[in-house]
Each structure stands twice: as structure tokens, then as C-alpha cells.
């Protein structure tokens, strides 16, 4: 038989690549260590120990007085609200852009072969849409949510709204990228079957792509929600509402015991979200 030759399985000659890679890794590690100013000695010196001790002992005992706790209720709720709305906006941005930025949906593979062969105009158009979608996603996620929040606080004023927008955009970029990878990873054979019976791209998506991707889709989205709870706490530091704003106030007043209380609240919220998402995933 003259076909198919297993051209992909090649006997590789002794390659220098692993050594080169190891060398580069070591170089990068030591260089970063030096340049990042990492200095473990500081933990053993008197000055460093004093500062650390002050911070840690200042945290205990956490402030669990009803007055302070009731004061924290609203910001905690706000943090959750920011994270939920932010994640919803992120899905609304990431889902369509991720879909358009899915290689096997837009331009490549067996679902585009017959459609695009001998149709250069169609192919060009598809590539344009594909690159625009991927470009937007890159742009959204390359700017950290912290910076987005900073800009939105300037644009729309203090409060939770800029936090929602910041999470929506930055996380939309992240979700979209991962969605497209999830979509690219599904088994293409059932999709080929749907195409061959005359289904259009959207029908193939709803009947084949999405059902196959659903578990990963849901669990990654929930994971991002969990991250959003944490992030929305941080965003408060630049004035975007929620618990972060309280952390900032307490830090500035050197009330480290209040800081610990807020961290505990944050931990409980993240744990609760994690528990909830585990339940949701179990239902799938």
C-alpha cells in the first residue's frame, strides 16, 4: 500500500532542545529571582520580624463585634452583586466573541472544508471576523480588571457600577478565549454528522457543539464567578465599591483586626460559591 504513510511519527534524532530549554529555564529563574528583589533573609532579621509581628498580632483577635459585622453586611452583599452582574456581562461578551473566535467554527477543519474550498471571498471574510473577535478578546483581557476599574471610576464615578463593568470586560476576554478552546476541543465526528444531514452552523452548534461542551463550559464559568468574588473585593481599593473599599479604609486606619474580619468574610463567601458551583456541576 502506498498510503497513508505515518508521516507524523518521526524518529527524532538526538535533540539538543531539552538541554537548551532547561538552560533557558534556569537562566530565567535566577535572573527573575535577582531582579524581583527576592530576599528571604528579611524574615529572619529583627527589623523584618518586628514589622511582620506587628501586622500579624494586630490582626488578632478579629473584630467580631456586632456593630462592625452589621456594618460589613452591605459591602459584602455588594461584592456578591458585583461579581454576579460582572460575570453575567462577561458571559454575554465572551460567549458570542468566543464563538466567532473558534477556529473550527469560523475557518478550519471539516466543517468549513466544503464551504470554503474554491471560495476565496468567503474565506477572507471568515478570517476577518475570526481575527477581529480574537483581537477584541485579547484586548479585553490584556488590560487587568484593576486598570479597567480605575478607568471606569473616572468615567462613571465611584460605586459598584464601574466594578461591574471592569469585571464584565476583563472576564469577558478570559471567558471568550477559554470558551473557544472548549469548543475547539469537542469531538468533531458528531458535528460532521449533523453537517452532513443539512444542518446550518447554528443548528450544529445547538445540537452538537454546545451539548458536548456544556460540562466544561459551566464549570469554567462558575470558576470565573468565584474569581470574580475575589476580584470585586480588590476592585474596591480603587473606589469600585464592595468589601475592598472597607479593606482599604481599615488598612489606612491600621485596624488590622478589622482587615482579618473582612478576609474571613471573603473566605466564607468564596467557599460558599465553591460549594454552590460543585452542586450545580453535580446536577449536569
Amino acid at each position, binding site marked *: *500500500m502506498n498510503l*497513508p*504513510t505515518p508521516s507524523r511519527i518521526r524518529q527524532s534524532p538526538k535533540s539538543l532542545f531539552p538541554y537548551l530549554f532547561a538552560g533557558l529555564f534556569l537562566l530565567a529563574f535566577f535572573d527573575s529571582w535577582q531582579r524581583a528583589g527576592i530576599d528571604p533573609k528579611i524574615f529572619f532579621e529583627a527589623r523584618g520580624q518586628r514589622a511582620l509581628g506587628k501586622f500579624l498580632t494586630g490582626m488578632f483577635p478579629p473584630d467580631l463585634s456586632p456593630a462592625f459585622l452589621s456594618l460589613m453586611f452591605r459591602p459584602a452583599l455588594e461584592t456578591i452583586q458585583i461579581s454576579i452582574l460582572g460575570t453575567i456581562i462577561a458571559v454575554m461578551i465572551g460567549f458570542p466573541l468566543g464563538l466567532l473566535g473558534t*477556529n473550527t467554527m469560523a475557518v478550519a477543519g471539516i466543517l468549513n472544508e466544503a*464551504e470554503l474550498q474554491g471560495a476565496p471571498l468567503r474565506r477572507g471574510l471568515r478570517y476577518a471576523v475570526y481575527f477581529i473577535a480574537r483581537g477584541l478578546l485579547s484586548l479585553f483581557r490584556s488590560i487587568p480588571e484593576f486598570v479597567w476599574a480605575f478607568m471606569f471610576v473616572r468615567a462613571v464615578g465611584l460605586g459598584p457600577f464601574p466594578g461591574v463593568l471592569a469585571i464584565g470586560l476583563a472576564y469577558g476576554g478570559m471567558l471568550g478565549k477559554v470558551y473557544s478552546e472548549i469548543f475547539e476541543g469537542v469531538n468533531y465526528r458528531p458535528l460532521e454528522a449533523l453537517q452532513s*444531514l*443539512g444542518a*446550518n452552523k447554528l443548528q450544529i452548534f445547538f445540537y452538537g457543539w454546545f451539548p458536548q461542551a456544556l460540562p466544561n463550559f459551566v464549570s469554567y464559568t462558575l470558576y470565573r464567578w468565584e474569581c470574580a468574588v475575589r476580584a470585586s473585593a480588590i476592585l474596591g481599593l480603587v473606589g469600585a465599591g464592595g468589601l475592598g473599599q472597607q479593606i482599604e479604609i481599615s488598612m489606612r486606619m491600621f485596624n488590622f483586626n478589622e482587615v482579618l474580619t473582612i478576609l474571613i468574610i471573603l473566605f466564607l463567601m468564596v467557599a460558599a460559591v465553591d460549594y454552590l458551583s460543585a452542586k450545580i456541576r453535580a446536577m449536569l
Partner: protein
Amino acid sequence: MNDLQQQYRLEEVRKVFGRHQIALDGIDLGIQKGERVALIGPSGAGKTTLFRLLNCTLRPTSGKIWINGEDVETLHGKQLRQARRKIGTVYQQHNLIPRLKVIHNVLAGQLGRWSTLRSLASLAKPHDEALVHKALDQVGIPERLFDRTDELSGGQQQRVAIARVMVQDPDVVLADEPVSSVDPALASTIVRLLIDISRDTGKTLVVSLHSVDLALAYFPRVIGIRNGTTAFDLSPENISDAMLEELYAGSGRENSDTEAMSEPANSIAYPSIS
């Protein structure tokens, strides 16, 4: 040249993957409407690629294909989907969506007729339950309507795939190794099922089989494919043992039913899209 009775006409069809991987090397073929044809030949001979050309999943690198008198090369977009709708395919791996209920997998056969919105609505509330009932009844698993598809056995899933084709109601049924992943007893049942469907409704049927015995027993026309081209195209009584031996020479297999079970998936798979 484009005879109205002709379902398929292929002229000098070649398909080359990448630069050098020649899957099909000049196929000439005519298949009449309502004909029942079996394809046999060693793994890697190009049968799967041929099926992908016949159901408009791929286009030939060179050469011409007419389906129902229509030149495939000119088809794009909606016309291409319309052409595909009239061709039903049963795959070796049945290619159903494991997480969907059986009813949705069967109703997927209707997608070529439904609008996108209607197909979405059907996922919430299935259209035309009766149609699915009838099809599943015919393939012999009437009660599995609302089970998740991955809860069914391999043979049952293949029946669901056949029910999907029945709901699609195409002019042609293509079946690419439909029985090589089920046991021999079930294999002939499923082949008979396909033949019944074709006979009852006058559909053209093209089936590729690993089992030469099944091909010779059930099909009036058997085409041997080797190295991407047709080795013979005859009725079973004109096919000699020597021809079969030559067809499979060097592929290290015997032509028996039991062999079909251990046969791996076709080795000219489409280059993975992921």
C-alpha cells in the same frame, strides 16, 4: 451525460490531503437511483474519503461529481445544505451526541428542514414525538425515547443513528462501516434493516463493509476499492476468490465476519480539527 436516472456520477475524482497523501486516485463511478451498492476493500483504501465526497462533506481535489444531475462544485451556502439534506449518512461510530436525549438525536434528522429557531424550540419541547416513535419502532427500540443517548449500548446507538436517517428521509442512504463495531449477529440485522429501508422507499443505498460475506450476500452490486481507485465493479456471482485475495493482498486480514469486530477505525481519518 447527466442522466435523470443517475443518483451519482463521478469522473476522474481525486482527493489529496496535504501535498502527498493521496486518498482517492481517479475514481469513475455511476450509481443509479434506487440502486443498492456495497463497497469493500482494505483499510486505508479510500472508502471513508469517498463517502465524505458523496455526502458533500469534502470536495474533490480534481475531477467532477454530479449528484442527481447537479454539479457539486457550484453548490455553496443554502444550496449546499439543501443538497446535503437529501443525503443521509450512517457512520461507523454512529456519531450521535452522547449527552442529548435519544429523541433529540433522532429529531436532528429534521434540522435540514427546520429553521434555526424551530430547532432551538424543539430542544425545549420536542416537535413531532410521533415521528420519532415510529422511527424507533421500526429500528426495534421503541421505548428508549427519553433516555440519554450515552446510556444505550453500541448496537442500540447504531439503531438510533439509523432512526435519525429515517426521520431525515433522504434520497440516498450512505453507510460507512455501519456494522464494524457491533457483533456479527447484530451486523446482519442492521444491514438487513438498511436494505429494507432502501427497498420500501426506493432510496439509493451505498454501504461500505469490512465483511465481504455480508456484501456478497445482500448486495446486487459490489465495488472493490484499493489504493484509492476501483479494483472491480461487479455483481457478486462474477466476483472470484482470486479477485478478493488480490483486493486484500498485503493488508494482513482474512475476509470473515469475526475479523470485522477487531478492525480498527479507518486509518485515513480526516486530519484532526482540534
